[in-house]
């Protein structure tokens, strides 16, 4: 069993695709200290062919998924956008772009995302720009997915594109960084997010080295946990490892909590009081606190082997 004994502060996972995860994951994340998470709109593994599929997906991000998270004491936020892969279906992309303003202004939407490049096609470039413009219009941060292939060039190109559209780099979170991309991202004033994801993106031992080398300013850790082999506890595990390896606790708090809050909090939609006000008290008291007695609303926590 992994121990999180050294973590005595709250954590945020600013990139987690919870629609693909179970309630066990929510429970484990909460037990490991995650108080809030951000779910970027992304691609579901299977391409969508109708605009209605996007509509219902966005609705679930601001509806049922938010409720599901709340049952486990986790505050759920999201970013709304058209992902890079599906931007290549232009006829569909046009309709999806029309939909975005409907969702982007909703409560708890903390940015436009995840958008960016996959294959670095012209269509991807076009819809990336349109969405950066929308973010500026609505005063929302942008969460940028950088490509798996031709990553270094794709990351540079993403930042160029953002600056060309006129958005200020402190409003942009460049995600899925590695040892090869981090320096340029930080030097140009963007937020540098790292996804701790087995086999493909970052490992947490490498993450420790990055923080040792670059410090804690503007660096953010996330899990990007999704339908693939991924780890919803990547943020707590990385925080624990950093502390074990002697990284200053204040630094760990920054990269696993405060920086994500500062970056996405610029939306005005994410406030520390959202979770501090409710999570410090027993769930049962919360429901009776305002004398609205709601029977049966206490989340079931199953400890034993017997399921009743």
């Amino acid at each position, binding site marked *: 069993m992994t121990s999180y004994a050294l973590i005595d502060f709250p954590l945020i996972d600013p990139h987690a695709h919870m629609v693909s995860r179970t309630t066990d994951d929510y429970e484990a994340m909460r037990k490991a200290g995650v108080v809030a998470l951000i779910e970027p709109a992304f691609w579901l593994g299977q391409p969508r062919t109708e605009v209605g599929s996007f*509509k219902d997906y966005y609705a679930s991000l601001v509806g049922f998924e*938010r*409720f599901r998270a709340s049952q486990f004491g986790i505050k759920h936020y999201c970013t709304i956008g058209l992902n890079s892969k599906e931007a290549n279906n232009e006829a569909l992309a046009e309709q999806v772009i029309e939909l975005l303003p409907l969702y982007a202004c909703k*409560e708890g939407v903390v940015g436009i995302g995840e958008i960016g490049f996959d294959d670095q096609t012209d269509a991807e470039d076009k819809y990336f720009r349109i969405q950066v413009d929308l973010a500026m219009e609505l005063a929302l941060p942008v969460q940028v997915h950088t490509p798996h292939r031709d990553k270094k060039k794709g990351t540079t190109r993403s930042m160029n594109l953002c600056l060309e559209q006129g958005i200020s780099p402190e409003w942009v979170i460049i995600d899925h960084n590695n040892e090869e991309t981090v320096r340029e991202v930080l030097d140009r004033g963007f937020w540098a997010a790292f996804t701790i994801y087995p086999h493909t993106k970052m490992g947490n031992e490498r993450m420790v080295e990055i923080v040792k080398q670059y410090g804690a300013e503007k660096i953010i850790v996330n899990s990007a946990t999704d339908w693939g082999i991924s780890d919803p506890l990547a943020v707590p595990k990385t925080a624990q490892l950093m502390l074990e390896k002697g990284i200053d606790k204040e630094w760990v708090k920054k990269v696993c909590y405060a920086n994500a809050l500062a970056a996405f909090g610029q939306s005005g939609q994410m406030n520390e009081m959202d979770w501090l006000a409710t999570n410090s008290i027993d769930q049962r008291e919360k429901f009776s606190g305002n004398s609205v007695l709601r029977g*049966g609303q206490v989340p079931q926590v199953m400890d034993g082997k017997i399921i009743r």
Partner: protein
Amino acid sequence: MLQHKSSMNPLPQHIPQKSIVAFLQSILSQSATPTAQQWLQEKLNSIHTDFSTRHFFIAFSAAFRFFEKEEISFSTLQIQKANELCLGWNPKGMRAYEVARLIIFLHLPTTDKGTYFETVNKLFSAADMGELVSLYKSLIVYPYAEDYTLRTAEGIRTNIKNVFEAIALDNPYPAKYLNERQWNQLVLKSVFNGSPLYKIVGLEQRANATLSQQLSDYAHERWAAGRTVNPELWRAAAPFTNKALIHDYQKLLTSENNFERQAAALACLQSQHPQALALLNPYPELKNAVENNSLTWDNFSIAWYQSLIQ
């Protein structure tokens, strides 16, 4: 046995939306910041002069960014006024941003009913959790209120508990407009969800024989599985007490659980069924408590929910 009319077909009722908007605006002016009020006024003007669904949706969503999230404390006079404007309407529990949303919603053009519902349906289908709560809370004051029954029945199917409770609890709309099947689904789902039944408006008035049987069947299923049932359930069942229910009360009266015994006593007296009343003879103290009003369904429910959270 008490007999109630189980089917209700309310006639379309004239609801004075303009007076309601004026009332809501007076409520907001108590606490909202000048910036918020100015923002709202600008949005209303643009809805009025240059209506576009996109701006309407964005204004409806964005209201919560400008107005308070806390519940408004309404005066008794204001609650009375609301009820005068629209019978049964009780704005208690509304938050300032929800009042603003309702004002925006009531500015939706209504002249063409088809266009009106096209926009309304789009608004509901794209709504987030908080927006659905706001939308369902105030159904009773909407134009064409009688045409929202399918929408309400759809809302009852939600798995999001606070959305469900926005419809089911402290809301006069379902009792007034839903048909018997829709109503029964609401009550059964409230029982299943563990929502407090005493907060359902019209629970006793809308009792019916089908529902009583469904509730008794539900209790039997739970008992067969070794589970307990919410004893408030008997309040909804009692007005149509039948033989099966008499057996249920008999079982409950011998229960070790005090709440179950109390619920059975309340149900027996509420039913006024001779056989049910006879069941109480061996329990004079329970019978007296109900008869002298020291035990009522409302104080029973409050004590029951209190016990659950301890």
